[in-house]
């Protein structure tokens, strides 16, 4: 193999810039694409008799989508900007979806069938406030009206064209609006809210022209707290500021009356302060005290009466009017492995309209939200379907006691990704259900040959395409020879781990981590990192690999840490532990113990170092490598970069031999008035580098790459320039980049780009960094490359010295040797904004690299690293051309065929991960965001394997033809010889 690689390299370099493209019929062969929407916040059903039944949802990831109610597929979907969160949503006129977003500033209408935006209007107001959207059935001048309260102003907007018909300011000091109510059949709206926390305010507004009809207020000395529940169109229920007294506030015909009832009068052993579960069910509301949910009925004039006390986890759905004066609502309760869906009439607690028990996957956790919808059965009775949102952010539709469909929308918010190998194929290990026999294999190839020769009928073509996409090879559950089949393990924001198969993207297992679920000790756990913990090879091959999930109890960096160890084959949580220290950083060390568990160094907020696993063997390794362990910290806020080494055991009162104090080795303090750190990048730990030397053919020279694992790229900007584009002039902005050795703190290179600003996206590989920033002078994005070469090895180019052995190539590389380095740099324009950048990584690092650029359009573009080569010049010499140097152009080319996502979008792109396959030519690319996209990518074509296009049948036919020809010629020659002899 070693000899063949240079030949391949020669072939690669001699070819022109390869365009790595795909034929349209190859889509889906090695790639898959999955679309998600995120955790649903609000859902509105659209189930009219005509047309397809759909549900419109808005999610916490700022997505508006319509889903098919039959199968859960997305009809259309729009991802709003990151600061454009959806506040309210409804359907108007049966054909428009109206959304209020951006804290009530933007109102948009979307066409329900196809998602085309119909109109957009922006609403302004005097001050910040809660945003409420109310669809009225009012018609003014043939316009249906939607009433919006946002930013302290009430707007009436026409549903047809988004025109603001009237607006009215509520500048009353500190009015906190709670509800906008339109009593049925009236043409006025009530605005109710609290002012100065102890005053109840009610405004009655004429909905036709915004005229104030009535303004009343009433004071309540106890104050108000939390949210309110509406129990009729002119009565609401609130709690006083202690949470112990229920207040029934009625504002019938403008007369406000407040009636208070202490909760202890209703419930005998009230455990403490209660909270109201906001709802708008006629004559009924619910409060929650600790884990107990209490349903309270409102009878007549403020008479309260407990309907039921429920101890289990209960979720209450929205109220739904099924007929004149009849309202129903849904309750979902957990009962062991099942969930129980109950639909009750609002005015008749004891009668259940529907009671269903549904078996639920334990890995989905608790029910978070319920949305109820009804339909009329053929016998004119009411049927119900419920859309439920689970703790793991998945969305399920329940109907007639079964789960009709489910969507794993937790996958829309991925925190971290790692990969794991599949088990080796051997007896007893699961293998795909059926294997093709030889006949079928041959038949398939004959079909393909027919396709190539254009003899195939349309049915044959369909069969070929089906065969190609459904190849059982790619979705087997075992390791393959080329290393294409792996498990992608992802950690989602909901604290759930998923293992996806690279072959077809299906979920192999999923697990809601108990350690990342809400508990007494840990109130708001969040996941942080996912690291491979144990990757068995060689002697420990029989063991399953494990991943380490690192989390912390709440958002702040000094919160206590949580660790969890999960089997990557089965998803079983082996163990989890709540740590007694915080986690600021996780550093996987390049050492493993005898069971192939990788040593990890966890740095806490007090700069103490904790080693894991906590075994005597690990501590032995740590002792041996004690002086070789270094790390650094970057403090973005005050611009300090510090380097650390291990010093001594912690001298805390608890004897913990795995805890070490750190000694500060060096620190770099950046002037805070002129520089602010905006990006830091290091090399990937597991990157393979094939060769240190780089041959410069032009002058028969050798350059040695400066390859160090301890390099850190830091980008800083002027503090003023750290905000958005448009707000600063070129004269007052600059971008400074540093290359820092993290062991010694030595600054290897510093460069200033005047008139440039962030955001900076960078990737560091081998001896080069590529970074992307905005050039304010040209008003374009730029990408720069820096390559670092080791000058102290430069005198090793004499071949004779190498032969005699007088070279210093075998001397160990150390950060302390202070070798001289040379850097080369060049900048180019680039068209698009960037969301993510990464570089291809292959098994041995021989294949030349391509940059993978996630553009603002959510596509992933592959760009050859040779376009970012500081040796490019306007007129390369003949020798340089042969070496593969491309003539210099001022901007980087965008070749549409080299979008590896082809005509797909990875909406909300966040990150790109590359994993080497075993085949040197190929790398596996996984891009994630709202959507997931996976593909195989060969940076310089697949030079080491036959392509999928290769026709085995043609080869077979050729061989057969050759053998036949040999026999024919043999027979002919025998006959000729015989004739010759007779002559």
């Amino acid at each position, binding site marked *: 193999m070693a000899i063949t690689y240079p030949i391949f390299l020669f072939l690669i370099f001699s070819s022109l810039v390869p365009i790595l493209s*795909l*034929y349209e019929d190859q889509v889906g062969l090695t790639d898959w694409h999955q679309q998600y929407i995120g955790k649903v916040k609000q859902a509105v059903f659209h189930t009219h008799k005509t047309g397809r039944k759909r549900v419109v949802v808005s999610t916490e990831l700022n997505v508006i989508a319509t889903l098919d109610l039959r199968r859960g597929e997305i009809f259309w979907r729009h991802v*709003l*900007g990151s600061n454009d969160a959806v506040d309210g949503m409804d359907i108007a006129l049966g054909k428009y979806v109206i959304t209020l977003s951006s804290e009530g500033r933007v109102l948009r209408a979307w066409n329900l069938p196809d998602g085309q935006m*119909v109109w957009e209007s922006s609403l302004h107001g005097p001050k910040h406030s809660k945003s409420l959207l109310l669809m009225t059935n009012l018609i003014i001048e043939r316009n249906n009206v939607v009433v919006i309260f946002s930013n302290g102003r009430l707007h009436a907007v026409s549903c047809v064209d988004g025109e603001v018909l009237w607006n009215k300011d509520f500048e009353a000091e500190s009015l906190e609006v709670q509800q906008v109510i339109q009593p049925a059949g009236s043409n006025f709206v009530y605005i109710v809210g609290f002012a100065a926390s102890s005053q109840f305010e009610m405004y009655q507004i004429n909905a036709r022209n915004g005229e104030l009809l009535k303004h009343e207020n009433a004071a309540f000395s106890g104050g108000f707290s939390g949210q309110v529940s509406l129990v009729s169109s002119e009565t609401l229920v609130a709690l006083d500021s202690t949470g112990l007294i229920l207040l029934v506030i009625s504002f019938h015909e403008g007369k406000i009356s407040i009636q208070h009832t202490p909760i202890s009068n209703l419930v005998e052993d009230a455990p403490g302060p209660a909270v109201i579960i906001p709802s708008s069910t006629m004559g009924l509301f619910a409060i929650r005290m600790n884990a107990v949910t209490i349903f309270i009925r409102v009878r007549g004039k403020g008479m309260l009466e407990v309907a039921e006390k429920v101890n289990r986890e209960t979720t209450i759905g929205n109220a739904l009017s099924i007929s004149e004066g009849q309202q129903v609502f849904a309750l979902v309760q957990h009962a062991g492995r099942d969930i129980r869906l109950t639909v009750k009439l609002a005015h008749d607690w004891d009668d259940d309209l529907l009671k269903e028990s549904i078996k639920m996957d334990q890995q989905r956790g608790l029910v978070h939200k319920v949305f109820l919808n009804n339909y009329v059965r053929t016998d004119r009775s009411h049927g119900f379907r419920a859309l439920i949102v689970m703790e793991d952010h998945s969305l399920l539709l329940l109907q007639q006691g079964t789960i009709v469909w489910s969507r794993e929308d937790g996958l829309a918010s991925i925190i971290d990704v790692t990969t794991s190998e599949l088990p080796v194929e051997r007896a007893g290990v699961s293998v795909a259900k059926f294997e093709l026999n030889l006949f079928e294999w041959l038949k398939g190839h004959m079909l393909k040959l027919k396709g190539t020769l254009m003899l195939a009928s349309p049915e044959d073509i369909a069969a070929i395409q089906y065969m190609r996409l459904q190849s059982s090879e790619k979705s087997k559950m075992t390791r393959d020879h080329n290393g294409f089949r792996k498990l992608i393990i992802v950690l989602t924001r909901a604290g759930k781990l998923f293992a996806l198969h690279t072959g077809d993207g299906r979920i192999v297992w999923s697990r809601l981590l108990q350690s990342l679920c809400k508990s007494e000790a840990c109130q708001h756990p969040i996941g942080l990192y996912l690291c491979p913990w144990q990757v068995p090879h060689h002697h420990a091959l029989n063991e399953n690999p494990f991943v380490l999930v690192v989390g912390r109890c709440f958002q702040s960096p000094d919160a206590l840490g949580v660790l969890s160890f999960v089997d990557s084959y089965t998803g079983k949580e082996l163990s989890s532990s709540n740590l007694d220290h915080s986690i600021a950083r996780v550093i996987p060390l390049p050492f493993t113990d005898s069971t192939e568990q990788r040593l990890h160094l966890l740095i806490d907020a007090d700069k103490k170092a904790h080693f894991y696993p906590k075994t005597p063997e690990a501590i032995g390794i740590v002792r041996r490598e004690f002086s070789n362990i270094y790390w650094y910290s970057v403090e973005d806020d005050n611009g300090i970069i510090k380097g650390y080494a291990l010093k001594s055991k912690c001298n805390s009162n608890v004897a913990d031999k795995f805890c070490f104090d750190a000694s500060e080795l060096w620190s770099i303090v950046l002037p805070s008035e002129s520089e602010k750190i905006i990006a830091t990048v290091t090399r990937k730990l597991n990157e393979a580098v094939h060769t240190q030397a780089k041959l410069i053919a032009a002058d028969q020279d050798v350059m040695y790459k400066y390859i160090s694992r301890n390099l850190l790229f830091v980008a800083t900007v002027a503090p003023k320039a750290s905000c*958005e*584009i*448009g707000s600063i002039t070129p004269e007052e902005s600059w971008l400074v980049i540093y290359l820092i050795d993290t062991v010694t703190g030595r600054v290897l290179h510093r460069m200033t780009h005047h008139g440039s600003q962030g955001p900076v996206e960078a990737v560091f590989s081998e001896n080069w960094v590529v970074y992307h920033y905005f050039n304010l002078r040209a008003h374009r994005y730029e990408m720069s490359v820096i390559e670092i070469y080791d000058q102290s090895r430069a005198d090793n180019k004499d071949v004779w010295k190498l032969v005699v052995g007088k070279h210093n190539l075998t001397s160990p590389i150390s950060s302390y040797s202070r070798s001289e380095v040379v850097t080369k740099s060049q900048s180019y324009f680039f068209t698009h*904004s960037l969301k993510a950048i990464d570089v291809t990584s292959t098994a041995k690092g021989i294949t030349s690299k391509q940059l993978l650029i996630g553009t603002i359009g959510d596509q992933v573009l592959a760009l050859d690293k040779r376009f970012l080569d500081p040796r490019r010049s306007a007129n390369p010499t003949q020798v340089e051309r042969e070496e593969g140097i491309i003539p210099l152009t001022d901007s980087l080319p965008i070749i549409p065929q080299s979008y590896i996502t082809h005509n797909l979008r990875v909406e909300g792109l966040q990150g790109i991960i590359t994993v080497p396959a075993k085949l040197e030519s190929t790398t596996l690319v996984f891009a994630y965001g709202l959507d997931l996209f996976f593909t195989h990518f060969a940076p310089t074509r697949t030079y080491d394997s036959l392509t999928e296009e290769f026709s085995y049948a043609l080869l077979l036919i050729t061989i057969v033809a050759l053998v036949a020809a040999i026999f024919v010629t043999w027979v002919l020659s*025998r006959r000729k010889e015989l004739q010759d002899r007779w002559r």
Partner: protein
Amino acid sequence: MASIAPLLLLVLLSTALTISSGSVDGFTINGRVKIPQGMGTKGFVLPGKTSNVKVILNGGQIVTYLRPDGYFSFQNISAGTHLIEVTAIGYFFSPVRVDVSARNPGKVQAALTENRRGLSELVLEPLREEQYFEIREPFSIMNIVKSPMGLMVGFMLVVVFLMPKLVENMDPEEMRRAQEEMRNQGVPSLASLLPGGGRN
């Protein structure tokens, strides 16, 4: 490409005013995206399908969508130089720099950053169509002939049909001599390699 003239959106161009000083806070940028109908007909993007076009200000600060007539607007924009990007699958749009000046609010200052072409109105058109897939070449006999297997077969045919011709043209004396030589050297002929061929 010949039929660029029939535009998708036949709206009065004069109404495309670009920047206006909006309400209380900030300015408003109004513009329009036009996708000529001649483009995209052979691609996978339906002509006139504007629901998936996004207009992005300053690399993601504000994202907005197009109305059915192709218009878009950004509200509450501060004075300064801004960058507008249009993303549409199947088309390549150049980013546009837009100067919003506080002194003369009605003035239009927009330029494509790719080719530095100034725009009198903020009407954005794609620079080119993007074809994400390689076009599969139609089947031709030359491809088969040029493939390694085709060359193998071709070489065989040459050997089978042309070699005997060459041999025939040789002088019989010379031929005999050559055969003698071959026998003496013991170079295995093709016949001797085959079963039953080694008798001579």
